[in-house]
């Protein structure tokens, strides 16, 4: 069924009797052409684009729990395409363009809201780096501006311009950046995929892979064996666990990233802001909660929870940047498991096993990448060639010395 204002009014007047399930709960079939392992944002988007853009059929998404329960359900909802390196920027800009048309495309209001993002800088070296980055963004077709301190002050007069330990000197701005209602992204893709015949199978955990003569034949699951011509894995923090079923070790570590939301407040912060002198980024949701986060806890973890030091570190950053939030209250905190890669950039690639494809290593850039990741992965699955914006996301870049290291931290995942 198609969603629209008229439908909402019609249903309201008739007691909402007509609404259909947003997606079915089908039993798994014996075999599919495509199995996408992982019912998160990336997996659902992959299935959606496989069906819609690449006209493929007999597609299933296998989710060990409930769809959208991974990082798409536990992030700070920021979208942006303000990357530096050639390997990344075209991909994230492609993602931004998909965000811009997403709601009309899948007929679901994911509240894509381009209220702008600014990255504050506090030193000349940061300014130089942002100048380099802003130019790279524009050369890749994105938008970027360098804001003066006064321009920042006009936008957010309540920031600490008086006695800051690291004074604000300006900011790199991307007006097209913003936020998206994260859960709605998973639900919108799920509904769109389901409408196109994709079987979304929840509570179906992959426990093994059937591989013969270097070719994948299907997956063993908690609901029995399911055959497949091609298997695409998009399980973020569980990447190493799932790919171990295929005997693979990955250039990935799993780390916990905490995020936070405050009680609902009347409008304070229109756009997205990142602090350049501490670990703190923030936006305000349409419901009024300040949604903010910081750095990962820093140790390997599969527990969806973190510890106090990072909570305090984030709050210290927030209080230093905007001392007016002292009396706002932190309502809820949660943790997501990040697939931190060795150079801070993702992998969308075939494996050495025929029919087995991998999508992961998103670190904490995964949410903003959702549409392009799904599109590019679907492209790879359907055509066996990488999408033009994702050609650098190869497994062998480490062997070849072609790392995509935005932060310049080297092979230490918890620093990316």
């Amino acid at each position: 069924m198609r969603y629209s204002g008229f439908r909402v009014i019609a249903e309201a007047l008739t007691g909402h009797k007509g609404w259909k399930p947003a997606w079915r709960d089908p039993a798994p079939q014996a075999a599919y052409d495509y199995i996408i392992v992982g019912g998160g944002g990336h997996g659902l988007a992959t299935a959606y684009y496989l069906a819609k853009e690449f006209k493929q059929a007999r597609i299933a998404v296998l989710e060990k729990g409930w769809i959208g329960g991974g990082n798409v359900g536990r992030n700070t909802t920021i979208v942006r395409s303000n990357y530096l390196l050639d390997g990344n920027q075209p991909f994230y800009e492609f993602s931004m363009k998909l965000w811009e048309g997403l709601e009309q495309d899948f007929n679901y209001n994911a509240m894509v809201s381009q209220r702008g993002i600014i990255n504050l800088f506090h030193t000349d070296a940061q300014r130089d780096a942002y100048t380099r980055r802003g130019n790279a963004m524009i050369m890749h077709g994105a938008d970027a501006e360098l804001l003066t301190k006064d321009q920042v002050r006009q936008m957010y007069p309540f920031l600490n311009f008086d006695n800051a330990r690291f004074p604000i000197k300006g900011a790199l701005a991307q007006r097209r950046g913003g936020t998206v209602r994260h859960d709605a992204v998973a639900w919108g893709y799920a509904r769109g995929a389901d409408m196109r015949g994709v079987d979304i199978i929840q509570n179906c955990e992959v426990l093994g892979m059937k591989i013969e003569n270097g070719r994948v034949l299907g997956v063993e699951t908690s609901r029995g064996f399911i055959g497949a011509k091609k298997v695409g894995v998009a399980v973020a923090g569980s990447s190493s666990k799932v790919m171990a079923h295929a005997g693979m070790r990955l250039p990935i570590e799993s780390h916990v990233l905490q995020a936070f939301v405050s009680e609902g407040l009347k409008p304070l912060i229109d756009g997205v802001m990142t602090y350049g002198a501490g670990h703190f980024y923030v936006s305000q949701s349409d419901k009024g909660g300040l949604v903010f986060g910081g750095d990962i806890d820093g140790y390997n973890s599969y527990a969806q929870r973190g510890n106090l030091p990072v909570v305090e570190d984030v709050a210290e950053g927030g209080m230093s940047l905007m001392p007016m939030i002292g009396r706002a209250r932190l309502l809820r905190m949660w943790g997501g498991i990040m697939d931190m890669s060795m150079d801070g950039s993702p992998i969308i690639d075939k494996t050495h096993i025929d029919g087995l494809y991998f999508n992961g290593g998103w670190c904490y850039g995964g949410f903003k990448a959702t549409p392009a990741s799904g599109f590019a992965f679907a492209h790879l699955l359907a055509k066996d060639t990488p999408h033009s914006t994702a050609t650098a996301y190869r497994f062998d870049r480490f062997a070849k010395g072609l790392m995509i290291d935005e932060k310049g931290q080297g092979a230490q995942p918890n620093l990316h």
Partner: protein
Amino acid sequence: MSRITGGQIDRSKTLRFSFDGVAYAGHPGDTLASALLANGVRLMGRSFKYHRPRGVISAGSEEPNAIVELRSGARQEPNTRATVIELFDGLQAQSQNRWPSLKFDALAINDRLSPFFAAGFYYKTFMWPAAFWEKLYEPIIRRAAGLGSLSKQDDPDDYDKGFLHCDLLIIGAGPAGLSAALTAGRAGARVILADEDFRMGGRLNAETLEVGGGSGADWAAKAVLELAAMPNVRLMTRTTVIGAFDHGIYGAVERVSDHLAQPLPGKPRQILWRIYAARSILAAGAIERPIAFENNDRPGIMLAGALRAYANRWGVAVGDRVAVFTNNDDGLRTVADLKAKGLDVTLIDARQGDEVIDSAGRLGLKSITVRRGNGRTETLAVSALGVSGGWNPNLNIASNHRGRPVWSESLAAFLPPEGAIAGLSCAGAAAGAMSTHGALTTGADQAVQALASLGLTASTDLPQAEDAPVNLKAHWYVHSGKGRAWIDQQNDVTVKDVKLAKQENFVSVEHLKRYTTLGMATDQGKTGNILGLAVMAELTGKTIPETGTTIYRPPYTPVAMGVLGGRARGEDFKPTRHTPSHKWATEQGAVFVEVGYWLRTQWLPRAGETTWRQSVDREVLQTRKSVGICDVTTLGKIDIQGTDAGAFLDKVYANTFSTLGIGKTRYGLMLREDGMVMDDGTTARMGQNEYVMTTTTANAVPVFRHLEYCRQVLWPDMDVQLISTTEAWAQYSVAGPNARKLLEKLVDQDISDAAFPYMACGNITVKGTRARLFRISFSGELAYEIAVPTRYGDAMIRALVEAGRDFDAVVYGTEALGVMRVEKGHVAGNELNGQSSALNMGLGKMVSKKKDAIGMVLSQREGMVQPNGYRLVGVKPVDPAKALTAGAHFLAKGAEAVAVNDGGWLTSVVYSPHLGHSIGLGYLKGGDTRKGERLRVVNLLANTDVEVEIVSPHFFDPEGERLRG
């Protein structure tokens, strides 16, 4: 007047306060809620979505409805629960999320339009036309959303952080917590007893139950007195344990000053305690839950236990004609206690088939409609209704580690998961022991067991107390009518919304919560979640535990950002590191710049200089002309000793050091294992087995960590010892043609070129004071770095300046330093960006392939040795009048500014007063073979496009004759 007799309030004192500008009076011991109720005020807030009139439903921190803006001005606190605000004289509170007034709220129109605002409606609309979402719909939604408001002024209060240690942390000071504390305290254990309330005793303060033959409240007071006298017990009232973290670490927030008009001088508003507990007991009691029925959200309708608490603890009758709707015996206590207070009370017992099916009263309860078991319905005029659907063990913190709560049929509630948090056990109602006797017993027993596991023995001595059964018949919501029955009152989630979620297949409890916003309000669903689960269970034909559980994340109740930040704000966000010349430079009016935690002199303006460029140009020209002095103390210094020190340096540096002679210094390049450059600096050999390594200012700490890693983890049998000496020595660079002449006036030894040649180092004395001298140069001039013990650093800069007078010596800052290093083509921070190899920097030849140094192997990967890779180049504008900008990108003439044409970027740019124009360093694809080429550097952020020539990075004295002079 609804004050009645009794209660734990001090009627001898009167406290004045105001709500929405109206003046009222209360007493010490009151909360804002009890005081307002005592003044006959039932309407205290509006709900989030439908702006329904709301009053208190609880007497504790689980309150979803009565949330207000407390205080005014910079101290305004939005969303504060009236039920936990301790009354103080002069308290001001305002209602929130309403306009123009609480009684008349324009957005109450949403309530009439509620059919259009069903769960998730916004996901289905506002999509057409595309542009309207952001331009029209969303701005309206954003303005309407949110609850209270911040002042947008800096928080004027201070916050502390602290650390506490104990054998046993007891969370909650009700009968179970007090019993546990007495047991453990008497046994001599280190005990912390924390309670969010300002009075310990928990429910005992709200009940008329007897303990040990006297009133429960009196027993609690006596217990507190006994505990207060124990040096091994720390009693913490007004302290909320916010969460359980790993390995027995608990977060707790103590509200030191929130019960005062404002904090006392020097005292914090709140303290965040990090509690290290060997064992802990959760004795947080239970939280009552309502039964949902049509219009069950009117002011005057509250939890039966709260109604009783207001009467017993605060001497407040919420109404004179009262009804109680219950499905368990606890509701009968409310009936009995209120009757004893002389009130007219009607019982509606769901177990007899009686139900409340509707209520009336726009701004406050006027009447309820009751359907008796025999089907007859009647309307009762009441101003207060107490509802009890049973009590949920308050297991919140026990599920912080995501352990699954366990369903209890007899209580129709979830019990805390056993052993889900190492070292934590549960007692009292939190563990499902609902009687006073059960609380006292389990509290004591858990304490005995906890201590036993620590090797301590304790005995129990329990007072007699009631042990009545619960007698509950699960009843979640009333099946009746077409109206709305509220489950999550603050977020306006009704039974209908849950039904819609089911209909649209949002049946997983996580989908239900996210789709309907059930449990997402400021109370985190403490009273409502279980109802939502129960309704979904009924709709899906599953049991409640099959449908799902509700686990809680920290914090237990919302926590002020300020207290999580503590003292680290403003200038105290991070420590400040001062250089030895700071005092002198301040006297000179120096301009300082943050370099990491350091404050360094950026430049030193002189009288008449109006722009920074004038100062910097002078500093550079005078240094190259005569001599300049610069504080370089911030560079990292690491003392490396041991018989394997030289071999060790060969491992950590890409180039060779074991061949370095004693008394000599060498430039070293340090790689990461992935072949990129980690850091660079000079290392001096001071003795046979003694080296001093210098690092960049930024990498001093990471390099030291890396060296310890190499020494302990990779090569554990190397005889190498390390210690940082960065702060032990005040080090100054003296550079320029007259550098030696200047130093000769201070140094007691012969430092002629013969005695102290280029790259020499050694121990010397400065007018008798121990010092070190290194003949190294970053500026390209004849230069030395001289170091004295830091305490003499201030005297040293003064001595250098004094000795420099004859040469018009200047002191230069980081800007001039930067100019001179770019003129010499030395790499620094902007080039050492972690993305660059030695080859990129034009230092490829320094990487020795003859030894196994860190990073050597991977630096040879094909992608890192491409001939067309980035190479460091010098850049100068073809038109000297044109300025360059760092971060601008290289483009060929006529090439479009698109990524495929991107040739690289300018890393560092300075104005060279020596050359009279802007110069830069940059990374250019294939740059090593492109000298003499003409390109453009384009900065699209400022729309500049400058033609440049690619030159050698060595702009100044390329042969390096000056530094050997």
